């Protein structure tokens, strides 16, 4: 065909042939146009409107998949109008889409840890794979696995079955500990330097996480910290009995081993200034946390014996003995207060009060922390607030006022209201643990308002190239929150340094919130596994030693298997979600009228799952079946809004003419059609594709084996419609696509076996081959070469068949060689 049609494509002159579609011309010129209903191997459908482009002179945007080019056409493929139209098309497709891309546990995890992935790897005994899956989003797993309040568990759907979640945190800890125990904390990849430098101030979880992800992208990282050890509040705030320092240290070291330069004992504002960093580095990330104890604002606050919560814990965590006296009052109801109270007990106090303005129900501290403090005989005084600290040169008394609960405040909690009634606590010290704030003294004025740092949603501060994340950005939060911030800030910095503007990744998730216990009645109940409980007095007898020893391996395998593998199996490959992410289409833009549409069904057969709630009616499957498989098992059944893809006459797939070639599953752009084998795997984040030939019939179809790199096992087999080396051009049958699970079957032969007295016993290769050699050469030498015979196999390779006949003829001296190939 002559390329005589001249087109101006995004301002560039290119030539195409007559009748060529805009889409094809774009593809030839390396311009990717998003498509959902188009497939180059099928006839046109033109229904999804995703491929819209702007053509000069045309009133409306045109479909690139359907519109042929003509001479002089001027095409723009990415204008604001085009972007908006595609975004709208996607939002409309999402408007009646029912499913959840990622499971609720993962969405509840601030770091979006691949819970389903690492829990199930753990349940399969694939601990290393689990660790690698963890590292995708969660650094410091052994440490986080000890101290995380586990918001994921709160949202875990296992609660609907057992009223208890999967032990996500404990499993994480087990895996982290497995790494530390085996000394194999994970592969440190070879890093391709990209020549850019980033300074990070603050080596807490936020700074460490950012350093880790930026380093993996190829940045040279210098990590500054005012302390002489890294870990931030995990190191200097959280006491050792909850998080032993060696555990944290090993995990921190592993991150640093990625080739991160550390500058310890360097305080921003004192030893180095922001201006200097901005000058020396391409970008600066501030992650120095909230290290100022907030004052109580009561008289007597400056008496000796009044301590800030984190200051007290800082001393304890530095191994310094703090003399708190015999009786201590801790003010506050958060985790810092709990840690301070329990550390006070461990520092020699015999009586520790926790004074809190509201009741137990309103306490922000973790339930477990409160329970454990109570078990250790900390006395809780609820509905009380400090009004003054009194004493002669040092603390002697704390005067408190009784409170009552009034109207709810902005946070929804009922506001404590003073009653005017006072009481006195005789104490030797007062620890104020009512909150922390950031120290902004090292930053210029335009970067903060004294309480909050000024950042946008992409972590960018008003100073170009300067970013902030972690507690500094959010205010005091939890460690995994800081890890998340570090990760997304790293992405934003990368975007800034590569594309010129900061940008945090857009997350496109269809979510289901309509599920409840009644949707899981078919699940068998199985209670959660718990670590052995250690009583309070035993804990106090070994004050700073860790007392939670975690789950055993058996418990991890059992508990992990409780996971129901929620979320969409197609999440990594779904084109709808991929474009939704690219075009930042919020799935919730248009409300979903109803959650389940009764005429759309989820239908499982032995090979694949049809979840018609996720079908976008693109018709690819229908065309694949009639044009590639040549079966026409399915078609559009109703029209308009009710459109449904199904076999004719309301039959099920198993009763239709479908022969389970899986080609429609392969080409379906969404998770509406998925191979059963992929259910419950939340990968392929790391997949290796190996092209090989089908082991079944003589057609010799080329197959793409998809290997999960983390476990080294096959997770799916597909075909490649564009392969240049195949004879089947994407086609295949049920055996090629679905006939591979025997490979990993448990009853594979794994050892040579020798039969003795009618029973097999295992043997070494040397022994087994030695015996075969002895017998066969024996027969040859005593009864003649033709007393032995060989059957080869049509299932073995050419090379193997060649060698066996050579062995028979050359070594044994017989032509008794045949194969069972008459079939």
């Amino acid at each position, binding site marked *: 065909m002559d390329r005589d049609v001249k087109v101006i494509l995004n301002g560039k002159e290119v030539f195409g042939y007559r009748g060529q579609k805009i889409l094809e011309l774009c593809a030839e010129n390396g311009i990717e146009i998003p498509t959902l209903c188009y497939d180059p191997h099928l006839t046109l459908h033109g229904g999804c409107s995703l491929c819209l482009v702007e053509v000069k002179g045309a009133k409306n945007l045109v479909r690139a998949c359907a519109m042929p080019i003509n001479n002089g056409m001027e095409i723009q493929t990415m204008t604001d109008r085009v972007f908006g139209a595609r975004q709208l098309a996607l939002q409309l497709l999402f408007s009646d889409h029912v499913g959840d891309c990622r499971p609720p546990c993962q969405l509840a995890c601030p770091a979006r840890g691949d819970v389903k992935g690492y829990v199930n790897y753990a349940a399969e005994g694939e601990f290393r794979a689990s660790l690698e899956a963890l590292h995708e989003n969660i650094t410091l797993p052994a440490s986080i696995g000890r101290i995380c309040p586990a918001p994921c568990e709160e949202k875990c759907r296992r609660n609907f079955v057992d009223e208890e979640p999967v032990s996500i945190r404990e499993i994480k800890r087990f895996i982290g500990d497995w790494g530390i125990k085996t000394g194999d904390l994970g592969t440190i990849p070879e890093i391709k330097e990209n020549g850019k430098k980033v300074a990070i101030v603050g080596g807490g979880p936020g700074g460490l996480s950012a350093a880790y992800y930026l380093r993996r992208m190829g940045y040279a990282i210098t990590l500054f910290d005012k302390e002489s050890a890294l870990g931030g509040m995990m190191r200097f705030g959280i006491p050792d009995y909850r998080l032993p320092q060696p555990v944290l240290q090993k995990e921190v070291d592993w991150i640093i081993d990625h080739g991160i330069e550390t500058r310890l004992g360097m305080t921003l504002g004192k030893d180095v200034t922001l201006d200097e960093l901005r000058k020396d580095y391409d970008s600066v990330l501030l992650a120095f946390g909230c290290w100022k104890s907030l004052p109580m604002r009561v008289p007597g606050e400056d008496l000796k014996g009044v301590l800030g919560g984190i200051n007290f814990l800082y001393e304890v965590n530095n191994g310094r003995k703090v003399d708190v006296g015999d009786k201590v009052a801790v003010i506050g109801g958060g985790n810092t207060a709990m840690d301070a109270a329990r550390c006070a007990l461990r520092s020699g106090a015999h009586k520790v009060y926790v004074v809190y303005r509201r009741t137990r129900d309103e306490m922000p501290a973790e339930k477990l922390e409160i329970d454990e403090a109570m078990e250790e005989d900390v006395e809780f005084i609820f509905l009380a607030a400090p009004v003054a600290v009194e004493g002669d040169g040092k603390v002697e008394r704390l005067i408190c006022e009784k409170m009552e609960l009034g109207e709810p405040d902005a946070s929804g909690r009922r506001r404590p209201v003073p009653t005017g009634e006072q009481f006195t606590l005789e104490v030797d010290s007062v620890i104020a643990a009512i909150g922390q704030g950031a120290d902004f003294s090292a930053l210029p004025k335009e970067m903060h308002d004294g309480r909050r740092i000024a950042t946008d949603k992409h972590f960018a501060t008003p100073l170009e190239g300067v970013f902030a994340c972690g507690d500094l950005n959010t205010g005091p939060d939890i460690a995994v929150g800081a890890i998340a911030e570090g990760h997304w800030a790293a992405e934003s910095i990368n975007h800034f340094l590569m594309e010129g503007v900061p940008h945090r990744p857009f997350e496109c998730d269809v979510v289901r919130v309509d599920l409840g216990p009644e949707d899981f009645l078919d699940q068998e109940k199985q209670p959660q596994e718990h670590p052995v409980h250690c009583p309070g007095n035993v804990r106090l007898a070994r004050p700073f030693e860790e007392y939670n020893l975690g789950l055993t391996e058996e418990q991890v395998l059992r508990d992990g298997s409780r996971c129901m593998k929620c979320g969409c199996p197609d999440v990594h490959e779904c084109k709808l979600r991929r474009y939704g992410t690219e075009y930042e289409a919020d799935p919730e833009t248009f409300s979903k009228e109803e959650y389940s549409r009764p005429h759309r069904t989820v239908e499982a057969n*032995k090979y694949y799952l049809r979840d018609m709630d996720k079908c976008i009616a693109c018709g690819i499957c229908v065309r694949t079946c009639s044009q590639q498989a*040549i079966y026409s098992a399915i078609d559009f059944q109703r029209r308009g809004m009710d459109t449904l893809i199904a076999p004719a006459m309301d039959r099920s797939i198993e009763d239709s003419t479908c*022969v*389970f070639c899986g080609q429609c599953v392969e080409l379906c752009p969404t998770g509406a059609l998925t191979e059963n084998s992929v259910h419950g795997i939340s990968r392929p984040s790391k997949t*290796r594709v*190996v092209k*090989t030939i089908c*082991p079944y*019939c*003589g057609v010799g179809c*080329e197959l793409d*084996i998809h290997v999960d790199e983390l476990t*080294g096992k096959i997770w799916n087999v597909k075909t490649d419609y564009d392969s240049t080396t195949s*004879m089947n051009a994407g086609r295949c049958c*049920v055996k090629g696509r*679905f*006939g591979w*699970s*025997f490979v990993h079957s448990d*009853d*594979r*032969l*794994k*050892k040579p*076996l*020798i039969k003795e007295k009618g029973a097999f016993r295992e043997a070494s*290769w040397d022994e*087994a*081959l030695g*015996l075969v050699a002895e*017998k*066969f050469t024996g*027969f040859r030498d005593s009864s003649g*070469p*033709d007393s*032995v*015979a*060989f*059957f*080869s196999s049509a*299932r073995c*390779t*050419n*090379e*193997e*068949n*060649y*060698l*066996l*006949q050579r*062995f028979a*003829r050359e*070594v*044994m001296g017989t032509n*008794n*060689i045949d*194969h069972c*190939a*008459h*079939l």
Partner: protein
Amino acid sequence: MTNDYESIKHADVALVIGSNTTENHPVIGSWLKEQQKKGRTKLIVCDPRSIELNDYADIKVRHRSGSDVALLNGLMNIIIAEGLHDKEFIDKNVEKFDELKALVAEYTPAKVSAITGVPEDTLKEAARLYARGPNSAIFYTMGITQHQYGTNNVKTVADLALLCGMLGRPGTGVNPLRGQNNVQGACDMGCLPASLPGYLDIAKNTEKAAEKVRQIWKAELPTSPGRTIVKVTDGLAKGEVKGLFIMGENPMVSDPNTNHVKDALEKAEFLVVQDIFMTETAQLADVVLPAACWAEKDGTFTNTCRAVQRIRKAVEAPGDARSDWEIIVDLAKACGADWDFHSPEDVMEEISRFVPQYGGITYDRLDQGPLMWPCPDKDHPGTPNLYTTGFPRGKATFVPYEWNQPHEWPDAEYPFLATTGRTLYHYHTGSMTRRTPSAEYIKSLYVEVNPEDAAAIGLKEGDDVRVTSRRGSVVGETRITDRVSPRMVFVPFHFGEQPANVLTASVWDDTSETPAYKINAVKVEKA
């Protein structure tokens, strides 16, 4: 296959005989259907069962099982009688036309119609359509070869193609569809008692063969005739064969007359089985060697259109299991041989020196895509279509055969005809597919019964049905379908616990020694 897959797209007519293509060679089936649907190819389907492809057939020829040679002779009779044969082609390329003509003259439409049960008009239409082409291709499989006279069938198919000059052009050809992934390769590699790799016939070319073996293996070629599988089984029973080494096969399930095979294997003094699973056959072994499976090794397969293709290692083998090639190399060394192969690629290097058809095949080239043999040297592009420039020995020969009544035919005591075969969902003896989702889909043996017969016997869908031949008996689930004709049942053979091959006779085609699985007289009862 004489022609490649691409050639299918050029066929004006495709004659499919004894091949349930859409079940046994599904992707080729899809091409044939696509061609027919698009109106590019007319389909003639000859099969005793009303197979799926029949739904697309322009001409449906439901001839009786075992009557293939009569049918083909009948077609040739009509073609010659109506002068539709390619005289020019025959003059130039084929010998013994007169012999053929004389023999098929006997096979008048009336006579053939009586033998095959196919109406005379259908025979004529089919003959004309095929002969007129312009390009007609024949496809067949074991439906044709698994008969006592399978070799005759195959030669007769070739006669038909020669008669009409349907060879050597895209869209034509004689295309046997190979059942297993690498049957072609196993034959190419000389795993045949009578020939060395590359079909070098030991008896006919003894000196040449011996010289090659001396040169490449530095060894002496044994010249005593080798035993075929069937004769090995007999030899075991008689104590003449003492040691048997089976690589990757499960004859306990796949071979005819399972009971006979079991007796023979049990008699072996020393049986070695190399496999990926503890198969029915491996149970009987003295030594079992664990092999890597297809996904765990490198190598090549040769498919049914002679395309050599690379298989690649994707995952590690479990436990101590090793690739078959490694095992053989080590065994050879243990027997004192001085072999120096370190990879399948090393072996291919030797193959390319030994087998002229593979002379130009290297792994590097295969990475660019399949190569169809003959591919004699490194610059040769491979040969998609054979005989484009004539025949290797100058001229081909017609080899006409008479139709013979099959060895066993339904009678009063065994009134049904049972044919064995495979289904889309399972493969061979099931040791692989019965560990995949297909195990759930088709769990156990089923027997296809025609609705008429089902009614007469009182069988309902799903009932247990017993099928008994003179040799044995199996029980399966009833499937009522008009895919089988009345008085005929179909029994798939993938199920070791109910092996269809207990029904089959130890009767073989005399030339190829292919077992006759296709025809068995049986009785059918409610179990």
